Structures are given as structure tokens and as C-alpha cells.
């Protein structure tokens, strides 16, 4: 039984289709990412699972139970909010123990459990501080402890690392992953950062315009995009238009090719002119104009670099040219 399942779920705000006819199953114990640009419907999907939004169509089930009529406080899911939403009038311990207090647990018991949850996120001994006395990373951990102490069956994370600086973000990515493996709880997290989605998730759903464009493993999404949007948004892949693909392969559909898979050769199927070069350290990024299509290649540093304005030919291994569906 899937932990969360969406059956033709829509959430329309008047004429705006924030979520439109989404079909999705999230398996139990999965680390699932919802990836998309802002306004693509990913956060609304998360809020539909949490219960802050009601679907205008379709059916949402959490562990098989229809939840359309359940308010947030009756669902076995907890949320880590983007701004953490720690209660400013309570200290860290009482923040973490809030759910237990509402559930009517005794003071000693809930304090012990809150302390254990704080230990788990490596904040043991911080219980009597106020949220305002903590750093951003520490607040994030408190928010995590506050959600997890209730032993939810699904944990929802809304842009959990968005407010942290780069170094802290990488560290928290590791920690979240470890924590998820350890607890075995289903994690569903929303992000607009493709690197974050690919590095943390077991599976990724790519959203655009309220619809899920593609669901798959990070490798699928990265190497085998089904539509140009995914190729462009997730991997900054080169998208070859239909006409070009038709001439090169005889297929009538767009195709994607990863920048690191393009090779410079003297003889090749595609003629191109070099329009720019930038040094990236590990590699050099070269931009081309190939018969009106903008392409980029990442060349390793041991390959001879072309100069701007050079006329070159591009080639690739046949399996690296990935055919896609048209549209989106």
C-alpha cells in the first residue's frame, strides 16, 4: 500500500490551476522529492497532504485512508515548515513537546521524549533556550525534532534547506538522508533546487504548471528526461529541436544530450560555431551555435580547447542522444 496516493487530484483557485489532475503514488519508507520552479504546484501538493488545502477534485489517500475530510490535526503527518514556524513564546523543549502536550501526555514523559528528540538532531541540552537564541541551522533541527517526536508516518518538508547557507545545506542534506534511513519514515520534500533533489531523493517528481511532468529515480530524471522541460530544468541538458533530430536520426521528436557527452571532432554529424568559453575549474564550458540552436559542452581540461569563432563539428555516442516526447 502506498504511503501517499494522489488519484487525479486537482486544486484550482478560480481560474488558476495550482495542481491539475495529478496522479502519484509515494511508497512507504521512500525519500521522495517534489521538484519544480516556483508556482509549479509542488508546495500546494505538499499542503494537500498536510491538510492545509482541500482538493477541488480527485482523491488523496494516506496509507489507504481517504483524507479529503480530515483537518490537519487529525492526520498522521507532520510538517517541517520553510520558515520553521517555531513558537516564539515557548522554549526549545516546549516547542518540541508541543504535539505531545496537545496529545495529553504528562509533563515528565513529554519532556523526556523531547530531550531524546533533541539528542537525535544533536541539540541535546538546548531545551531551555528560546528559538530566538538559536542559529538558522539549529532552528531547522528544532523544527525537525518537533515534527519527528510525534512519530508521524509521513514527514513533509517544505524547502527545508532553503534558508541555510551552502555549507550548512550540504551538511544537512547528509544528515536528513541518514536520519531518514535510520527512522524508515516516508519523507516527502519540496525543493526548487535540482541538485538537492537528485542528491537526496530515492525518487523525484518534476512539476511544471500544476502537473507532474516526469517521475523517476534521480538517474532517470538526469540521464533520461522524457520531455524538453525536464532536460532543461533538471540537467541543463542540450535540447535538440525536432527538425534537427529528424535530419540527424530520422525520428520526429526532440532529443536531449548532456553537455559532458558532446565531443569535438574534425568530422561529425553536426557543424557548429564556437560562441563562448568559460573556465569552470574541472572543465571548460563551451557554447556553440549549431544551425541556429544554442548548445553547450563541458570539455575536460586535457582536451584541446577551441577558440571563439572556430568552426567545429560535434559528435556523440548514439546512446547518449536521448529521444523525448514533444510538448511541455
Amino acid at each position, binding site marked *: 500500500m502506498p504511503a501517499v496516493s494522489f488519484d487525479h487530484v486537482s486544486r484550482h483557485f478560480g481560474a488558476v490551476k495550482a495542481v491539475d489532475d495529478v496522479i502519484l503514488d509515494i511508497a512507504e519508507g521512500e525519500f521522495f522529492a517534489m521538484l519544480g520552479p516556483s508556482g509549479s504546484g509542488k508546495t500546494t501538493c505538499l499542503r494537500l497532504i*498536510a*491538510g*492545509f488545502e482541500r482538493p477541488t477534485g480527485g482523491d488523496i489517500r494516506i496509507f489507504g485512508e481517504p483524507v479529503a475530510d480530515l*483537518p*490537519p*490535526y487529525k492526520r498522521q*503527518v*507532520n*510538517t517541517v*515548515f*520553510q*520558515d*520553521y*514556524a*517555531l*513558537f*516564539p*513564546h515557548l522554549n526549545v523543549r516546549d516547542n518540541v513537546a*508541543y*504535539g505531545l*502536550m*496537545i*496529545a495529553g501526555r504528562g509533563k515528565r514523559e513529554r519532556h523526556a521524549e523531547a530531550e531524546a528528540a533533541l539528542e537525535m538532531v544533536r541539540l541535546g541540552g538546548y531545551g531551555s533556550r528560546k*528559538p*530566538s537564541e*538559536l542559529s*538558522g541551522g539549529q*532552528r531547522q533541527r528544532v523544527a525537525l525534532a*518537533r*515534527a519527528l517526536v*510525534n512519530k508521524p508516518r509521513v514527514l513533509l518538508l517544505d524547502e527545508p534547506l532553503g*534558508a541555510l547557507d551552502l555549507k550548512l545545506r550540504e551538511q544537512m542534506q547528509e544528515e536528513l538522508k541518514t536520519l531518514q534511513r535510520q527512522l524508515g519514515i516516508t519523507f516527502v520534500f519540496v525543493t526548487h533546487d535540482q541538485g538537492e533533489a537528485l542528491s537526496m531523493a530515492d525518487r523525484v517528481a518534476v512539476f511544471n504548471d500544476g502537473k507532474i511532468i516526469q517521475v523517476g529515480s534521480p538517474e532517470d530524471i538526469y540521464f533520461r528526461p522524457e520531455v524538453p522541460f525536464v532536460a532543461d530544468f533538471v540537467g541543463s541538458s542540450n535540447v535538440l529541436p525536432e527538425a534537427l533530430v529528424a535530419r540527424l536520426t530520422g525520428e520526429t521528436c526532440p532529443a536531449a544530450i548532456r553537455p559532458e557527452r558532446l565531443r569535438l571532432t574534425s568530422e561529425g554529424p553536426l557543424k557548429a560555431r564556437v560562441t563562448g568559453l568559460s573556465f569552470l575549474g574541472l572543465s571548460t564550458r563551451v557554447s556553440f551555435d549549431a544551425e541556429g540552436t544554442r548548445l553547450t559542452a563541458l570539455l575536460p581540461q586535457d582536451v584541446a580547447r577551441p577558440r571563439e569563432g572556430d568552426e567545429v563539428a560535434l559528435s556523440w555516442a548514439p546512446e547518449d542522444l536521448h529521444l523525448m516526447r514533444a510538448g511541455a
Partner: protein
Amino acid sequence: MHSDRASLKLKIAAAAGLLFLHLPIALIFVYAFTTEEKSFQWPPPGYTLKWFAATWNRPDVWEAMALSLKVAAISTLLAMILGTLCAAAVSRTKFFGRESISLLVILPIALPGVVTGIALRSAFSIAEVPFSTWTIVLGHATFCVVIVYNNAVARFRRTSGSLIEASMDLGANLFQTLRHVILPNIATALVVGGMLAFALSFDEVIVTTFTAGQQQTLPIWMLEELVRPRERPVTNVVAMVVVLVTLLPILGAYYLTRGTEAVAGQGK
């Protein structure tokens, strides 16, 4: 070049300004102790405490005081309920005409009291409502609501909306969320708004003149005394009491709002 110490001229100017503001009030206090009854003679020929006893034994003072306290208490209570609900609606939801409502709520405090007073008086006479404590309360509530509303709306805006969602996410229903999250976060704003509203109502004259009929609140009683004085220093004793009764809540409000500048719930 700036020096850290104020120059002598600036000090004198500041002292003069403060004296100009506060000397008249100090004089009122001094005259409460004078032995001279008919006119304000300076310096007072002698000092006595007998006017405190005289004030204590004047039933008209007690009646006016009781009416003022009653009116201020009821208007404040009314304002706290209406002002808070209105602030919650305006800052938490989006609806047609929200901005206009916000403006209309604040308008009474911008209108001259005379206008509010006349408007209410004609409304009462058209509706044939006899003057009573309640007509005064209604008049005062028009500006008390604004005070509470302004305080509450500022706090609501500074309280992150996701706090309420977080509370419900953690299992709390609406009532529990109100009790454990919303009220603790707006409590000081409510108390402050209430205190200011109370102080404003307690010494209000203009609107009261139009809505009181024959009843006398304490400020109205003082005006009457100026016209037809009887034991003139009694007025000064009452003035002292009024200053204390209105000053204490305002001081309290000042101390409560210090150090609450951080945005509640915005934990970044």
C-alpha cells in the same frame, strides 16, 4: 565637529521646553494643597491636606468617578473584543473591501471629536435613544476600538501565519491553537491596547459632552466646577487623581511594549 556632550545652550533649551510642558501640571498639584479657597494665589498662602478629606466627602465626585470608571471599563472591554476580531479578519484573510474596512475602522480617531459627537447625538435623537451610560460607552467605543485594533493588527502582521498551521499540524484543533499559540502571541498587544483605550476613555470630554445628556463623567464634572466653583482646590485634588489613573496604564503599556520588536515566529 560633533561632541558627545550637549552644549550648555541646548541643555537650557531642553530644560525650558520640559518646564513649559510640565510646570502647569505641577502647579495643579501644588494648588491641591493650598489653604486659599476662592482664587489661585501665588505663592499659596499656606498648605493643608483638608481638601483631600473634603473631596472624599463629596458624593458628586464619587458619582462622577464611578461613572467614568464604568464607562472606561465597558468601552475597553467592548473595544478589545471588536478590535481584536476585526484585526484578525483584516490581517489573516483576504476579502473584498478589506482595505476600505481597515480605513473605516481607523477613521473615527482621525475625525475631530466634535464631528463624532454631533453625529452620534443626532443618530441617538433620530433613533429616539435616551441618554444613558450606554450612549457614552458607544461614543467612547468608536475611538477605543481603533486603539485596540491598531495594536492588534500590528502584532498579527508580525506574527508569522505558519505558526497557526504549525500548531494544527502538531495536532491542535482551532480552540487549542487559539489558547496555546494565538493568545500568548498577541497578549501583550491586547493588554497595551486595552490600557491605552482605558486611559483615553477615562479623560474624554468632547464626545462625552454630546452623548452624556445630564450625566457627569469626571472630566465633565471638572469642567462644570471651573464654571461654578465650590471649594476650588477639590478640583485640583480630582485632577491629581485623574493624572494618576490615566498615567499608570500608559506607563504600563510603555514598559510592556519595550523589547517586542522582533517578528514573532519568523525564525530565520
